[in-house]
């Protein structure tokens, strides 16, 4: 199965992030099996790398993102006492050449790549700004993986589920990857509810070209979803999960996606919330 995406020439004129409507749902689904998908349908994924701290593109990332529009964000966090300009003057060229090297590897695997290099005092501000600017579906927590054969998709509820589906279908529909949809039951939610929810997502995926035979459903009751997801992730190659609203808990323990990435040690795609219309 060759999945080389034909490098179509329908490149978007100029900007490319403003006019792609948030949900092209109602429009006809992409012709299943069609190799020549137009660019904007490729899911946009932001890949932040601390280039100057020796962070490099982890093994397996080019394969994972072969079907994505990748925004490769090289960043360098500078303490407040240093002017960002000062660091750029000294390290800009070096960082840029490293970043170009990584971009070439991603492009070789088939991804559309755009690189940005940012000197910042605060990583979150930079990642938020760029994921907003590119309307990124997901931000990657980069970790290495040997192969990309099965993916765990942790779903919390209907809100944002279609963005998850768009990402999974966009990245993996043509790649023959096994997809496990996972839902931890909330208080007062029955097993039937959970299964109905996941079945809905499954048919959404099927519409978007993901073979239903390759989709497995798991509904679970667990006290600590983070532990459950992290332990389940061990038998998969990558995790897709949603963004969590900042709260006191996330302030103290860190974002769930970060905690999972730390324990799972594989790549985690964090699906971004829908950006409010301005």
């Amino acid at each position: 199965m060759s999945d080389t995406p034909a490098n179509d020439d329908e490149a978007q004129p100029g900007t490319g992030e403003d006019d792609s409507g948030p949900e092209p749902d109602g429009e006809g689904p992409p012709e299943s099996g069609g190799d020549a998908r137009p660019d904007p349908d490729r899911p946009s994924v932001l890949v932040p790398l601390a280039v100057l701290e020796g962070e490099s593109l982890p093994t397996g990332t080019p394969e994972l993102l072969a079907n994505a529009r990748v925004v490769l964000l090289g960043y360098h966090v500078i303490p407040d006492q240093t002017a960002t300009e000062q660091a750029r003057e000294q390290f800009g060229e070096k960082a840029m050449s490293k970043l170009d090297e990584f971009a070439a590897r991603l492009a070789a695997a088939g991804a559309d790549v755009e690189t940005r290099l940012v000197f910042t005092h605060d990583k979150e501000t930079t990642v938020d700004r760029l994921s907003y600017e590119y309307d990124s579906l997901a931000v990657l927590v980069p970790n290495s993986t040997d192969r990309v054969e099965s993916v765990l998709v942790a779903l919390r509820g209907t809100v944002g589920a279609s963005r998850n589906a768009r990402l999974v279908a966009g990245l993996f529909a043509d790649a023959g990857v096994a997809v496990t949809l996972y839902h931890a039951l909330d208080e007062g939610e029955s097993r039937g509810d959970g299964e109905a929810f996941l079945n809905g997502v499954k048919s959404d995926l099927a519409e978007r070209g993901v073979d239903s035979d390759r989709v497995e459903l798991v509904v679970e009751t667990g006290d600590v979803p983070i532990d459950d997801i992290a332990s389940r992730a061990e038998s998969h190659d990558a995790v897709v999960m949603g963004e969590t609203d900042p709260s006191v808990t996330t302030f103290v323990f860190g974002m769930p996606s970060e905690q999972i990435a730390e324990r799972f040690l594989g790549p985690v795609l964090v699906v971004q919330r829908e950006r409010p219309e301005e």
Partner: protein
Amino acid sequence: MDGPEPDETRDTAPSPADVEDPDAVDADTGEGELERTIGLAGGLAIGIGTMIGAGIFVFPGLAAENAGPAAAASFAIGAVVALLVALPAAELATAMPRSGGGYFFISRGLGTGPGAVVGLGLWLGLVFASAFYLVGLGSYAGQVFLEAGIALPVDPAVPLGVAFGVGLTALSVFGTENTAALQNAIVIVLLVILTLFLSYGSLDALGVFGAESTPERFFPPGGALPVLQTAALVFTSYLGFAQVATVAGDIKEPSRNLPLAMVGSVVVVGVFYVVTIFVATSAFGSARLGEFGETAMVEVAREFVGFPGALAIVIAGLLATFSSANASILSASRAVYAVSRDDLIPEAASRVNLAYGTPHVALGLAGGPIVVLAATGQVELLAEVASFLHLVMYGLLCVALVRLRREQPDWYAPAFRCPAGVPVAAVGGVASFALIAFMQPASIGVGVAIMVAAYGWYRYYATDVELRGDF
């Protein structure tokens, strides 16, 4: 490794590509873009945090001794002069939202010579200011021992100030934690303590809690002269708004946030200063306040609410002078970077070490002289020299505004235009230079010597650098 491609950064003709939307994150030059991370609250915190330490926690005793209750007028005069300069400075900052502050505006508006005098003067002005804040910090740290009942054989203010100077410099070289959040928290705590204290004090002074205090004669025996002299002395408490401009490159939406942060912080601290002097002089006679020296406010608080009040003011004083000293050391290092970027001093001064990401040479050039000056313990001299060097910058900054308004170069497109710009700048400039005349001869002597030395350095080292209009 001297002078790699020095020509590349110095094309004087601004090409259309250089004229960028000042609100945009700095455009990618092929070597990466620069994130703006400081919002309005952060900008105000820098301005207020730098200023409030001196005016409230160090000066009241000294100022009341010199000018009596009219010291409140001295602070008000300072606030007016600062506002007259802050408005033109805000306009220049939105036209040139780059790090370097006043130095950047003057070197671009008036040329390399004045730029060099101001740039080197700004570095040393901040060095003098930091040393002054450190002695204040030392006084409050010494007060802690006093409150704890530990008798010390010598006045601990100067040795403790020197120790803090060494510690803060080391912290800024090796500390890689971002301190912006801490600075914001300190400013909020300070404003809460001060608001409570000053509200209580004002009500008390007006006679709400018993007898109205008898006001002494408002003007001191010498008439207006001591008031103006005191205004020149305490002007050090208004230096912080320019520090906002030194980090202009980091401010989000600079066209909105820079003017608000600069003008807003002057207004806030100005009100606090005037009320503080009113409360302090109504609690004690001016002569008594003078005897208490740098920590007079502790005694004022003790008079009102006893030991808890004194304790609260000691803590607030420690926080305030600490944050002022810290902010000034960091600004001084930014000033060194700004002149070194323009090749006015060797490039080595702005090296950043990769391990900590901090400009260790520039921080050393700031921290070293600060410690030496703090060791002298000459509070009033340090404060006045700091004011002198800043006032020269403010005066020239007003001149730069007038000149840029008249010449209207292509690149000059400020998003904020100072209302009645030219008259305001003219009055602000004259007032800045006039205030210098009321300083002690020794301070003027030191200040002039520094300016002459800075100009001499420029003639010796950097005559071939042309900065005017290089934007």
